[in-house]
């Protein structure tokens, strides 16, 4: 029953997104604000966990929404899945560029020290260690772990979004868990 309700809600949401898209394409630029407020939170969390830096996450989010706006007429299917792929690719490109630019991975791919005040209050030692451990994982393992454990997505949904198989994603999540436990258990287990 819950699944049926969830599917119905998704269909409603998707239909509503399509209406907003039509509005924006008709020249009502302000309608795009609705799409931003609907999807920015999960996308921001994804970018934050992938990059480890609130500043970079904001930049990735901003560039992704601008790209989404410019290519809005090309949306086929669900808007949220389409914009998620833009953000996910933005994060991966950022991670690739950081390695290519000969900057030290250890120094620059670590969580930023510039957290927002709210976040600073919330940040515990475990959170800092978790961020560091996540940053040491290969991007594909990190992405799969975040989608599963932070975003709470099902393997089927992840496979749909990333264009890969459920089996490969389970393997990535399992490897990520074991790697994280290896890095953190000495201190926390």
């Amino acid at each position, binding site marked *: 029953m819950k699944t049926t309700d969830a599917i119905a809600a998704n269909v409603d949401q998707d239909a509503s997104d399509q209406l907003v898209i039509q509005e924006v394409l008709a020249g009502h630029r302000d309608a795009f604000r609705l799409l931003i407020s609907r999807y920015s939170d999960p996308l921001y969390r994804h970018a934050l966990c992938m990059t480890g830096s609130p500043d970079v996450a904001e930049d990735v989010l*901003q560039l992704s929404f601008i790209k989404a706006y410019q290519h809005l007429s090309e949306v086929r299917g669900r808007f949220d899945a389409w914009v998620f792929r833009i953000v996910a690719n933005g994060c991966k490109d950022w991670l690739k560029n950081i390695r290519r630019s000969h900057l030290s991975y250890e120094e620059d791919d670590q969580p930023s020290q510039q957290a927002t005040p709210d976040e600073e209050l919330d940040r515990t030692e475990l959170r800092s260690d978790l961020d560091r451990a996540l940053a040491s994982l290969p991007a594909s393992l990190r992405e799969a772990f975040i989608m599963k454990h932070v975003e709470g997505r099902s393997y089927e949904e992840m496979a749909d979004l990333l264009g890969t198989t459920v089996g490969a994603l389970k393997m990535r999540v399992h490897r990520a868990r074991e790697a994280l436990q290896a890095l953190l258990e000495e201190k926390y287990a």
Partner: protein
Amino acid sequence: MHEDLSSDAGLVRDGRKRPAPEGPARPLVDREVPLGPQADRPLAAAVHAWLDGELPEAAVRKTESSKDVEFWRALDTEMARVRRLRTPQHVEAQIMAALPTHAPAAAISPWYRREFVITPATALLVGAALVAAGSIVTALLVR
């Protein structure tokens, strides 16, 4: 998989196999699932199943993995904090200010992907043109 074509793949000239060189294996750079930091011990399948929502916590706590359960519970509490994070308020305004002022361009599809519509009048015209062209060609050939 990248093959090293310049290698003699362990063969010496008389065709006998050379003993495999000692040392660490060459890393696989194109694995679909790259290896992260290596775990000292793999997590029990039951713990993975519990974390995937396929087993109840009680079933895993009964086994030797109760320490792992504690560890993942603590980590989940931390991840729950991340799940509550919201986009900073100024970001939405920043994005809106950075958007182009004009409406997004309509997608321009190439002619071969566009819908092909033929009306009865067009069909008649095309048919008549083909008949006329056919008769001209026939007349030229007959001469």
